[in-house]
């Protein structure tokens, strides 16, 4: 129960704003879809967003980070065990506390879609799962090489915008998100959010259809481009955000105008139920815990019933619960008995041996019959 009494109107407004978003937890899915040394900037993009998101409060347990992770220990890296972002040129976004959940060849379209929809095999560890519920706000950040309607995963496969839209619809129907912010930094990135049709999705992209997203300056010591422009300016913007800031989405839409980015960033808010001006950046990039203050004691449940143990028929009262048998090992390991042992038909055996006997006697004469009978 909340104490209204000593508060004034502004505080009331502030309180309602506190509860206006309706989410209780935050998740982030950050995916870098490229590998190889020359795609350094995509990894640096993703790791920079990872750092910002962690700084703003989302813990590693709520971040699913998918990287090819072949930059820091690449033999072409002149500064091993580091991945630098262009911010200050000295910020090592790799550090020693980065937790990559899907690395190397695990970053596939199938794994990405399985993470989103939750259809993972039972043996998948928690760190690789997106355990969101219908009160989760999810930030999804994708970067890599893309085209009109597709995004390339690790040089061998693609995800199309239709697949992505369907995955989000599955998430909506399974109540796996409250609101979703989708950011994509690739060439022709706007094509990836064209097909969304599920409610409560807001999307940002670094370039429109037909435009390329460009990278920022290269670092001559490392030899590759360190970041992409859109992410670079977005991170500059995010540096000013702290967990209590009130900046809203409209400011994020203004990040990286054409003069700085060369490409035209785009956004899509028609599926989003709230007004973007009322959506805080920290609703998605940070993890602001909702705290409810009460002064009263609350009775949680009724008194717990004791199991009545009847000494006469104690076994009947006990309900034995067991897990549903998902893998019937005993049926699989034990050989199935041969239900139908195939045997050649009797007519066939009879016909064949009659023939053989006929040929034998024709060849060698009937006189051999007496040796047999």
């Amino acid at each position, binding site marked *: 129960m909340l104490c209204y009494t000593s508060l004034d109107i502004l505080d009331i407004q502030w309180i309602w704003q506190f509860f206006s978003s309706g989410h209780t937890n935050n998740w982030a899915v950050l995916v870098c879809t490229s590998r190889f040394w020359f795609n350094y900037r995509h990894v640096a993009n993703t790791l920079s967003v990872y750092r910002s998101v962690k700084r703003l409060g989302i813990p590693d347990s709520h971040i699913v980070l998918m990287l090819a992770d072949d930059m820091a220990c690449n033999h072409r890296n002149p500064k091993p065990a580091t991945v630098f972002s262009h911010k200050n040129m000295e910020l090592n976004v790799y550090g020693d506390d980065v937790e990559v959940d899907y690395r190397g060849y695990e970053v596939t379209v199938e794994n990405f879609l399985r993470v989103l929809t939750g259809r993972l095999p039972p043996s998948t560890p928690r760190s690789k799962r997106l355990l969101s519920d219908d009160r989760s706000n999810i930030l999804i950040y994708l970067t890599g090489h893309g085209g009109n309607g597709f995004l390339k995963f690790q040089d061998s496969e693609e995800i199309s915008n239709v697949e992505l839209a369907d995955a989000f619809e599955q998430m909506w129907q399974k109540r796996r998100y409250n609101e979703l912010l989708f950011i994509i930094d690739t060439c022709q990135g706007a094509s990836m959010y064209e097909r969304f049709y599920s409610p409560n999705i807001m999307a940002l992209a670094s370039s429109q259809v037909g435009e390329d997203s460009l990278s920022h300056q290269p670092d001559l010591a490392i030899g590759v481009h360190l970041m992409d422009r859109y992410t670079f300016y977005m991170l500059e913007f995010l540096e000013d955000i702290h967990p209590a800031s009130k900046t809203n989405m409209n400011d994020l839409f203004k990040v990286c105008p054409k003069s700085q980015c060369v490409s035209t960033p785009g956004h899509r808010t028609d599926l989003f139920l709230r007004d973007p001006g009322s959506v805080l950046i920290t609703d998605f990039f940070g993890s602001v815990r909702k705290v409810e203050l009460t002064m009263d004691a609350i009775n949680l449940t009724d008194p717990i019933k004791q199991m009545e143990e009847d000494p006469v028929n104690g076994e009947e009262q006990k309900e034995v619960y067991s897990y549903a048998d998902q893998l019937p090992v005993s049926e699989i390991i034990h050989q199935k008995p041969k239900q139908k042992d*195939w045997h050649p*038909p009797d007519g*066939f055996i009879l*016909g064949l041996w009659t023939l053989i006997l006929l*040929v034998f006697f024709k060849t060698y004469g009937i006189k051999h019959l007496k040796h047999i009978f």
Partner: protein
Amino acid sequence: ENITCTKNYLSIYLDFWFPPTFLHVWRLDFPSCTSQGGQRFLVKMAAPLTLLLIVAVTIRAALFRSSLAELIAERVEVVSPITAWKRVVEGLALLDLGVSPYSGDVFHETPLIIYMFHFLVDYAEITFMLADVITAVALYMAVKEYNKQVFRKQKFALEADRYPMDSLELIRSPKEMYYVPLKVAMFYLLNPFTILSCVAKSTCGLNNAVLALFFLSTIKRNVLLSAIFLCLATYQSIYPITLCAPAMLYFMQRQYIPVNFRRVSFWWFIVQYLFMYLGSLFVLICLSFFLLGSWDYLPSVYGFILSVPDLTPNIGLFWYFFAEMFEHFRLFFLCVFQINVFFYTIPLSIKLKEHPVFLIFMQLAVISIFKSYPTVGDVALYLAFLPVWSHLHRFLRNIFLVSCVLLACSALFPVLWHLWIYAGSANSNFYYAITLLFNVAQILLVSDYFYAFLRREHHLTNGLYLKRKDGSEATLILK
């Protein structure tokens, strides 16, 4: 009778140790003692043959027990999709699960093989060793009988003075032909190709056994059995149908039916033989239908052999061509390649109508070179016949080349396979080059023997030292 026979026999032997004139020896009544002498031959040769069989079985049993058995069973030169033992086991397992073994692309054997191995699958090794033994013994007996006929014909020809004087050194003597059957059995049993094929449990060994029995029954002048064995061989792989022609020619020769298109007896015999052959084929196919209750096996066995859908590399010529061929040319080239096997029958039969056994050898060689899925087991069968023509060695021109190429190719097959598949530093062209070379060497071998045979026949009719009309020396060219 017996005593004179024995004396004659002994005197032949003594005469060979102290050679008088050649003609004098040959005027003796050697062939009248044939039956007695034949039994002596049999008794004298049983022991070495048994020893050879024991040695061969020991080698195979030793290899079966070693770890090489699985290695060899996977080699593509030894097993093909038609003959692989793995596929037989798979087909039987499918059958036990209630599924037709011909569903899918696994099993391409005939239903009779299913019937046989349904009961013998636990004794498979013994079965294949027995098949090799049967082949060797059948070839042995057949070649012995053939030698006797060669002698008889030679004797008649000598008595009729059909050979010119200077070609008498080409006449074959019992001494040189004494060991030929044993050599044939040895060439088959101790050939590394045969041993590999047996250890891999390739059903090619069974096919070879049936073909050897066909040969034996043909030589022993049993028309029904010959037709039945040939039908069994055709039923398993289609190509032995071309052996109908030499079998018919042989029977006609033995029954003194002239090979003349205008004679009724010629056509009547052909009708008889074909009736027996086609009748047994029909019976076999119907029996196979009754075994599994469906006609599934027809496209799986015969459709597979004829349309060559599986392009696993082997020692043949089909796979590489068809791997790189465009779809719309495929049917045309398929017809061309398949006709190539059957095409040589008629010309060879016309040329070799007096010598049907050599025709059988040539046909077997043509089949094993040009069939759609050849293996080294097929090669081993016709290589076993080579000692029968060992008297042609003075006319063979390419022995050294052919033997070197065959040995080198046999050694290079596994090497280039490893380089292509495992090391990744070669590609299919390397392997195909060796395949091509192997087949070229086989063709050269066969054509060399053909040349030598024809040349010997020519010399036997025209004399050894050929002279042109003006008396200068002439040479013989095969055009």
